[in-house]
């Protein structure tokens, strides 16, 4: 038990005033960088993540290329001043190494990689500010950046965490809920084809709680998915004008 745990649910409301099934406010912007082939920023509450995509491009070193598909490479990292408290060391942490893999494997099912054999598609996820949900915001942003880069995908991937705080299943954990809650379960999916591409559970749930949490996550994902489509439309509409 962490010391000094605050009360997280008071009269049915969460510390930031949301109900259990509320998302935090979300902002998405596509095409925010000039050099990258695709890019996007996603803000959810105070969490802010930049994603950039390069590719399909030549694989260096060449021996890593695969004859029947593009390889997907992904790096997730947090800027040194993006976290609460002390400065984060810029050396890659074990957490960042794991999440780079988790995010790659959340996006790979959506990418039609067979279309670009012997190439690489590089995804960079940079956390500008971290207050809960950086991996899911990173997946959501990277999916937009992939679309912005014109990479063919089966569907967009949208992601959000659910969790359990003070015994209640809640959507989209913020930093405090993540730190002191009983469970944190990030989920990613391709909503229109009904496929879950990422799920992790960090914490304890009964089987019933798990089912309820999964439903809530998929519901949140659908809402985020709609925002993604709007963000893409907005960019491409603007350009056409």
């Amino acid at each position: 038990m962490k010391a000094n745990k605050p009360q997280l649910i008071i009269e049915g409301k969460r510390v930031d005033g949301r109900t259990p099934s509320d998302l935090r406010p979300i902002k998405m912007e596509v095409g925010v960088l000039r050099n990258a082939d695709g890019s996007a920023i996603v803000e959810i509450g105070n969490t802010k993540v930049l994603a950039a995509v390069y590719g399909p491009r030549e694989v260096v070193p060449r021996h890593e290329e695969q004859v029947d598909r593009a390889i997907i490479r992904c790096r997730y990292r947090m800027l040194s001043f993006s976290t609460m408290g002390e400065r984060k060391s810029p050396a890659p942490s074990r957490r960042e190494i794991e999440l780079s893999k988790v995010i790659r494997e959340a996006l790979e099912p959506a990418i039609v990689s067979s279309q670009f054999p012997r190439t690489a598609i590089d995804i960079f996820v940079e956390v500008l500010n971290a207050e809960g949900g950086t991996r899911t915001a990173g997946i959501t942003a990277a999916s937009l950046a992939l679309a912005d880069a014109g990479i063919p995908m089966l569907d967009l991937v949208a992601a959000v965490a659910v969790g359990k705080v003070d015994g209640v299943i809640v959507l989209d954990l913020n930093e405090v809920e993540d730190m002191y809650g009983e469970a944190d379960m990030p989920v990613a999916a391709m909503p229109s084809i009904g496929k879950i591409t990422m799920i992790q559970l960090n914490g304890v749930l009964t089987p019933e709680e798990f089912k309820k949490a999964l439903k809530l996550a998929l519901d949140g994902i659908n809402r985020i998915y709609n925002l993604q489509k709007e963000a893409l439309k907005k960019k491409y509409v603007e350009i056409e004008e």
Partner: protein
Amino acid sequence: MSSTPETPIIPKIKMNAILNVLAKGNHIDKRPLLSYRQIDVVKNVSPNADSSVLVKLGYTQVLAGVKLEVGQPFPDNPEEGVLIVNAEYIPAASPTFEPGPPDENAIELARVIDRSIREPRAVALDKLALIPGRKVWVVWLDIYVLDHDGNLIDAAMIASILALANTKIPYYEVDQASGNVKIDRSKTAGLLPMNKLVATVTIYKIGDVLVVDPTAEEEALASASLAIAVSEDGNIVGMQKRGLGAFTEKELEQAIEISLNKGKELIETIRKFIT
């Protein structure tokens, strides 16, 4: 950078043969899809460790060892001991493993096992303070994959839980005034206190079927897997999807069901090897 792993080269004929066998409801070694291979346990492989357990799951071999050291608590948990989990895939374990520091697969394995032990409070870390706020036991759990024939997480979890549950705390004397702790590894002060047992059940999706405990050959054909940690009290205490593929919601629900059943079995097996 995390990068798409190299696709193992499996001849088409062999691949189809394996898929055919699985489609008929069996592993290639004739087990039913949802049964585990034989589990052998060798304790005290490394007498210099405070505990060490070799687990053989079929031909897969994982060695887990524990060293206790006196150290400082984390500032946000000043009255608890510290658990640190590391894993390495030694290059002897597979022709594709390379020497060097742990790669993303080893790091992920260690972190999945760490969370699955930490979250349900399997180890009673709150009983490991020596001088609250200043000196606590640091439990180093190191996992070595010695031979890779599939299903590493489940094998590593069995070895880890057994290594922890069989850990002998070295004899120690605390001088509360000076803050010095003298330890003497030739004597013991009892077993590491455990709250509950945990197992992981990893469900692999191969073609259209869900299986547990594949061999390395089978595992190479899986599009995705889901490691589910279950505790002896029937809760789900950890989860990690891996691989390039995806699951439907229905498959997830099946996977949970399988894990609750098989987890109970594995925990019974584990219990037999605790001193």
